[in-house]
């Protein structure tokens, strides 16, 4: 891979440190009038999500990271592995439950996710902001109760549990914001 020297450092650069891919979040140029240039950087580890603060001197370099984003649809789960397929190349990728993280809650067959590849290996997957899923099981709706502040837990077709208004019934299709885990609305099929 090519490398970047400090004069090329900028927000958004993808680089490698100790073998991990990082996204440069910030790069601040600091220089005494009679001294060497310093570049104070904040970098996010794209695998672990942790943020590293590191200072470089003018002329230092970082290796570029081969990081790309693809659209991949979820196919199925096989034990601890989640299997996805690149919609353009039909190439299949397997992620561990650890790599998938909380995204499993919103994965049903055919869901198109954005997937980050590092050296052509998947490192993370993000479901669409909004998904529509069927309510697999819940306690019956409370008849005649129209209060909107009553809520209850329901089990989705993916096996995940979320909190919804009390009027939601079994078999309803509901729209969920995957970033906040919040119920948005009922959807007519």
């Amino acid at each position: 891979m090519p490398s970047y020297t400090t004069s090329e450092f900028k927000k958004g650069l993808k680089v490698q440190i100790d073998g991990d891919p990082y996204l440069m979040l910030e790069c601040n140029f600091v220089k005494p009038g009679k001294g060497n240039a310093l570049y104070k950087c904040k970098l996010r580890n794209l695998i672990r999500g942790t943020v590293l603060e590191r200072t470089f001197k003018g002329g230092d370099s970082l290796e570029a990271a081969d990081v790309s984003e693809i659209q991949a649809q979820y196919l199925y789960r096989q034990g601890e592995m989640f299997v996805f397929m690149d919609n353009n190349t039909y190439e299949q990728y397997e992620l561990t439950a650890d790599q998938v993280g909380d995204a499993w809650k919103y994965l049903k067959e055919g869901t198109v996710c954005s997937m980050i590849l590092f050296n052509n290996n998947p490192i993370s997957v993000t479901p669409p902001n909004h998904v529509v899923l069927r309510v697999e099981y819940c306690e019956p709706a409370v008849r005649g109760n129209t209060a909107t502040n009553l809520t209850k837990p329901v089990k989705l077709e993916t096996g995940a549990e979320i909190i919804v208004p009390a009027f939601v019934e079994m078999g309803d299709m509901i729209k969920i914001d995957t970033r906040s885990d919040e119920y948005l609305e009922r959807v007519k099929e």
Partner: protein
Amino acid sequence: MPASGLPHDWPPAASWEMLRLRARLLQQVRAFFDARGFLEVETPLLSAEVAIDRHLDPFEVRPVRGGHPAGERLWLQTSPEFHMKRLMAAGGEAIFQIAHVFRQAEYGALHNPEFTMVEWYRRGDGLPQAMDLTDELCQTILGTAPAVRRSYAEAWQAAVGLDLHQADAADLAACARAHGISVGPEFEAADRDTWLHLLFAELVQPALAAAAPDRAAAVIVSHFPASQAALAEVAGEPPVAERFELFVNGIELANGYNELRSAAVLRQRNQQQNDHRHAAGKPRLPDPPWLLAAMEAGLPPCAGVALGFDRLVMLAAGASSLAEVLAFPAPRS
């Protein structure tokens, strides 16, 4: 974005209110020096001589035609220092200049590759007089309280708590680690001065902002390590550079010297700086024959100070980046 696909950032970055403040401050700076008998001068921005500093990268200009000596390389000046010293050697008493200067690859909240420098020299001044005048300028223009004064060693001791004169590069690296300052593997091989700059920026400068009794006060740090003398005299035991910097809110605003007068010492320092440049893969720069000739003819005892005018405007306006006070900062210049 205009339909033509032309850039949308053609208007100035600074507001008209800011540009009016800039204009007022330019007038106030001129009035300050005029009232003290300084003569305003203008010297070339483009020259066959340029400061030789391991950390300054001048813009080289070529090809060269007309007027300048044939075959010369020319540079945009990183400060008007050389020509102003030639004026001092030729009988200058007290001179000041407001000049645009140029430094490659310096861009950030407090840097722009082209910026405005106020620089002045006065015959007979030493470091104390230069510090007094710079402090007075800040009090007059920014309304700061009289500057808190610290030697580099004192400021260092208070912020870092390590014996400056005993510490070598390995001690300084350990100190950075102990303070949780993370650097890359290439940095680990840095020399002593590079570690000093890192620790100064990370630990001493933030402490200077806190050292002033209130935020509107200035701090003067003087007597830098001899290895950071640039073109200042070195004196004392242990030897230190007769150089000071003035900080406001922890931001470096001005840098002054009791000026080095020996042509022979200047040649040695240029050689050292060029060796550092060469080791870092940067081109060597030629010795400046006109400046050396002027110094051999005799530079009078004098002090010189350079002050970043854009930073002065920024501090006066309470702005946090130079882009707010420049009509057209580098990305849209």
